[in-house]
């Protein structure tokens, strides 16, 4: 399968993501420069984490105007798979491909630590290999991951089962102390209506090898591979 990893100025998880796809999953992967207007036949485009444009203005705001985003929008319209991780998620929100905005974490600080998330949807290209209700231990690393949406829109999002991951405790229960950033309804990841664009704040690429303390993250990448193969 062909994965394209988008590099904006300031992206810094590009190589981490590339490495997992290439060296752990042994898939075909290439970088896409933000000025490119060609996705080079990618089956799945990944917007990795980092600080695109230094998070100036708002996290993800400037990157959403990059030339490659127009290509990604039409790729999405044609049903292409797009995964946004952390800053990539923020960019997808700014580009209007995913709902919600990210407020500053409730403690106003950058937080880098392992959290637990619960899988809410297992019928997506990104979660095929996960069972609904499964709890994953996975790191977050962000200052703005406090998912917010107006009440009626939030209701609609929940109604259509757009929430894919929620922050929970080790036992899989929602709990205030298990929500690291104050995200509404503990939302850690959402999918668009068509089910082909996923945004998630936690970093699956950081827990894709046992040496780094866990390999549950690779299940998300493997799900995509499996889905693409069966397509």
């Amino acid at each position: 399968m062909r994965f394209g990893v988008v590099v904006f100025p300031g992206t810094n998880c590009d190589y981490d993501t590339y490495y997992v796809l290439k060296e752990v999953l042994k898939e075909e992967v290439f970088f896409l420069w933000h000025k490119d207007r060609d996705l080079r036949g990618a089956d799945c485009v990944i917007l990795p984490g980092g600080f695109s444009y230094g998070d100036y203005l708002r996290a993800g705001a400037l990157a959403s105007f990059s030339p490659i985003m127009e290509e990604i929008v039409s790729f999405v319209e044609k049903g292409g798979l797009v995964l946004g991780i952390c800053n990539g998620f923020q960019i997808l929100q700014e580009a209007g491909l995913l709902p919600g905005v990210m407020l500053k974490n409730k403690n106003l600080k950058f937080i880098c630590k392992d959290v637990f998330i619960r899988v809410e949807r297992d019928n997506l290209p990104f979660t095929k290999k996960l069972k609904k209700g499964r709890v994953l231990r996975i790191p977050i690393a962000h200052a703005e991951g406090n998912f917010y949406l107006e009440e009626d829109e939030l209701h609609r999002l929940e109604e259509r089962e757009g929430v894919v991951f929620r922050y929970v405790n080790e036992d899989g229960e929602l709990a205030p102390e298990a929500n690291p950033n104050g995200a509404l309804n503990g939302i850690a990841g959402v999918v668009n209506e068509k089910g082909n664009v996923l945004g998630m704040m936690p970093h699956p690429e950081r827990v894709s090898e046992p040496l780094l303390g866990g390999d549950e993250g690779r299940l998300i990448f493997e799900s995509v591979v499996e889905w693409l193969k069966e397509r």
Partner: protein
Amino acid sequence: MRKEREITVEDALREGLTKEEFSRIIELLGRKPNYTELGIFAVLWSEHCSYKSSRVHLKRLPTTSPRVLQGPGENAGVVAIDSDLALAFKIESHNHPSYIEPYQGAATGVGGILRDVFTMGARPIASLNSLRFGDPSHPRTRYLLEQVVAGIADYGNCMGIPTVGGEVYFDHSYNGNILVNAFTIGLVDPKRIIKAKAEGEGNPVFYIGAKTGRDGIHGAGLLASSSFDEEAEEKRPTVQVGDPFYEKLLLEAVMELSGSPGVIALQDMGAAGLASSSFEMASRGGVGMELFLDRVPVREPAMTPYELMLSESQERMLLVVKRGYEEEVIRVLRKWGLDAAEIGVVTSDGAITLKKDGEVVAKLPVSAVVDEAPRYERPMRRPGYLDELEIDYDKLPPPSDYNEVLAKLLSSPNLSSRSWIFTQYDHMVGTNTVIRPGADSALLRIKGRKEGIAITVDGNSTYTYLDPELGAAIAVAEAARNLACVGAEPIGLTDCLNYGSPERPEVMWQFVKGIEGIRNACLALGVPVVSGNVSFYNETREKAIDPTPIIAMVGFLPDVEIHATPWFKHEGDVIILLGDISREELGGSEYLKLIHKLKKGKPPELDLVLEGRLGALLREGIGRRLFSSVHDVSEGGIATALAECGFLPSGEVLGAEVELPSPSFRADGLLFGESQSRVIISLPRENLGEAFKLAEEKRIPLEVIGRVGGKRLRIASGGRILIDTGLSFLRKGWEEFLPQFISRGR
């Protein structure tokens, strides 16, 4: 040359030069310098840039080994792993700016050290930091801590370089002078190391990176090279402002340029900006430069030659390009949206000539500025306080409740969990972090290779205050031990020597003793010093900080998968103590400071030969997978170390039942004494025989002291139970100190 007002000795004094230095400049030039030239001399002859008080002593440090590719004198030191891979690393201080403007000061400290490393063509893979703050009760401490941590976090996180560890201590000696020492390590192909040696007459000199503004003007000279006084706050304009996003672009551009035959030399414009980069690069290559200051990209109008040369605006570099490769260089820089201006040319006349508006505004021989910089052998005197350090232990009442003492120690400013700090640092980006912050050393894998790299930073300023030489040696030994505790062999170190004013003989004495201690430990343990930094003038109103040599050491593991961590793993594992348990060494301990309010006594003894054997034992035992956990006994003694072994990273606790040998001395000495070269290991019972054999072979004392299990920590000795307490309770206090300390300010 344009006519200017004649420079006087008062001008020189204002610039931070002495009367004698000013006379020497006139003698060297055969004339009076103009204002710009005076500024250049002042900043390059400052303590910060010239090492004028330390240079003669630094020569005593061992700097070579078969692995060393680059010792001190470049942007960073380089140590080889093999012919395809080397490590570039350095530590540097940013103390004064961080006290005056903690957020920007700390942030640009990180930015500066990152640039030092990637200027060598090395891709940074991790950072560490060593921080010292004043007493927690001092009104400024909370603010400084919060801002410094935020500054480090925001810069490193945005750059995508993980901050994987460090150390933080509080002591009233830092009330008026905090310390912010930043370390970065990078990977480089030995064939692609970029040096800062300008060569080739006619080669163009490029200015790359951010534009120049009026920030940090003369910072190295006026801020870093003098003590604080009541006017310290007024020096705020000498602090630089950082932009990590811009630096990330600069990093990627330099990585893309490294290996190009067009790159002759590259140097960071750090302290003393364009002045130091141009003069130092020319000096290393024995050449001159002609620089056209009108072509320097500026963000403010009407900057004078003085300002252009002395500005310390961040995220800038000076690049010498091979003639003919200009377009390639410009193309790469443009791709990353960076300024690239051809501002000059390499000459063979051995002078730096500065032109502006078609006129020569300054012309100085490189050798006069660089080679003729003053070198002082300043007077030294043993400080009087050293005669007043004895403790009458008979007058120290032993505590009635050791549980309470242990709980106090673990929830104290110096021994409590640093989690509040390191969760603000992205310590995982780069996906190389095998051991995260909180262990004896951080451990990194190298993608595509089997080996691992361990890094640690250490220094105990109480020890160095009580015995400047022994304390410095302990810092080196402790760093080596921390590396050995994960299974790594030390291959090089970088030191940051933080002291008061070298103009005071007592400080100079402490400094020279410190170097002696580092030298002896390095020689005994076979670790070279490959880079470093001296930070003098850490004093306010004649009150100097405790001498604080900080050692950052780098270790090598043949197989990153085979390593150890400090945490207990299995119920029923046997616990052993390696090292000497027969000495009562409470001098300089955290226990004495915290419980008895005493910063006195003799620091623990250090046997460097034994330390070397202990390291070999640990590496062999870890390599053969004999041990479940390995943890160094340091501040807080055996009791503290045992509790730490039980604070698992998952948030759980795992207890221990321990019986220590009955000592011939008081129980607080047994529990909280800080004798050196000791390690707590847990291991499966079936490996105990092999452990004994190893210990005998390496002649290291080994004592079986207990077993892992339960959720409590019980320590008995001579039939008496000294400690018996729930670990979850201890952990709570240990975790809560820093977040509560910060939130109390709200």
